[in-house]
């Protein structure tokens, strides 16, 4: 991913992470897992991207 699309993706992931962090604080236990997934989304996505780029080289 390159250019504006990459910047939009990075900004969106950052915002989703923040939503996840606040969501976990506000929500009851049933929603905790969903918000936790949002929080770790950038880490998961970044790990996958790094792994794919590294393995394709």
């Amino acid at each position, binding site marked *: *991913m*390159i*250019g504006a699309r*990459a*910047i939009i*993706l*990075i*900004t969106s*992931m*950052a*915002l*989703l*992470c*923040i939503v996840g*962090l*606040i969501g*976990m*604080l*506000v*929500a*009851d236990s049933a929603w*905790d897992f969903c918000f*936790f997934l949002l*929080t*770790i989304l*950038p*880490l998961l*996505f*970044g790990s996958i*991207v*790094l792994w*794919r*780029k*590294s393995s394709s*080289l």
Partner: protein
Amino acid sequence: MTSTSRLYRLSLWLHRWCSLVATVPFLILCLTGTVLVFHEEIDAAMGVMPDAPGLSAAQRPLSESVDAILDANPSDKVIYLGLDSEHHPGLLLLNTVPEGDSNFDRARLHFTDLATAERIEAEAGEGMSLTGFLLELHAQWFLGPLGELLGALIALMVLVSLLSGLVVYWPHVKKVTFGLLRRGKGPRLRQLDLHNTIGAIVLGWAFAVSLTGFLLGFGTLATGLWSQQQLALVQSMYAGSAVDPRRPPIDADVALRSALSAAPKGWQVSSILWPATVYSTPRHYTVLVGGSGLDERLVRVVLVDASTGEVAGTAELPWYLKAITLSEPLHFGDYGGMPLKILWTVCTWLTLFITANGAWLWWDRRRKRKAHRSAKEIAP
């Protein structure tokens, strides 16, 4: 020069210098922060906090616990009582100070078992614990409220560094795919790719933690402002009608029941502050009540008359104290159990890595420029 390149240059300058200036303090904050995330586990392992006895159906009146502590400390008075059924079920936390004191500077922490009203020995009351020491370093740099403001300044520099980093990354990502680690082109490009990719991954988390750190830096200042503005007004109204602060006519149990009667259904008392402290009046208990979810953090203040047991008034925290109160869990990451603590640790170390390798990138470029300049001077 176009406005775009002017913005880029300004962002590059801000990104470089804010990061470099903040590198060493940020290293200390990351290291202490990593330990502090696990403060509950460390305190429990080191015996600082006693094991919580657990909730019991048979609970003795709070006043019996207060009496037990007063009997054991005849020259002290109780000024604070804390209940935390989530983290310390069945445990009552009490602060005592020498009888003439009204602030927490010389406060000692005591524990009792709610089911038996008997004292529980723990190290928390004896000097400073490891996590207490690290917290003082992390939050105040051993400089008191001034250190908190210094912490806010460091957090601001990290915030500026993050946002300017995004602007600096913009032209870079036009040429290099996100996540690509270029190999065989030297360590500099590889480190730069790692810096950009990891920076993008932790951007949201780092932004949240830096922003909350910035707000927490104003904690003491904001509490002081609130005390001076709102509390001082109420305190002055009751200056002439003080009660005995060691043995108020109305005990803690009555104060608790009165406060709950003025709170929404299902809310709990989290803290009681005795009359004649900096956070109460000479005549009133200050009781903090909270609900569940967000309401657990955004406590309400209930003033209970220590002579009659009547509720004198309730108040919500001002917006700035609400923001600071909510910042605390979002900064320390201790509200989502072990998975969140592990995430906090991983993100902290990743952020520390990009700070260190960013400093290396700067140093490496500077070194090469110097070498290039020297070579030019030597060449005929």
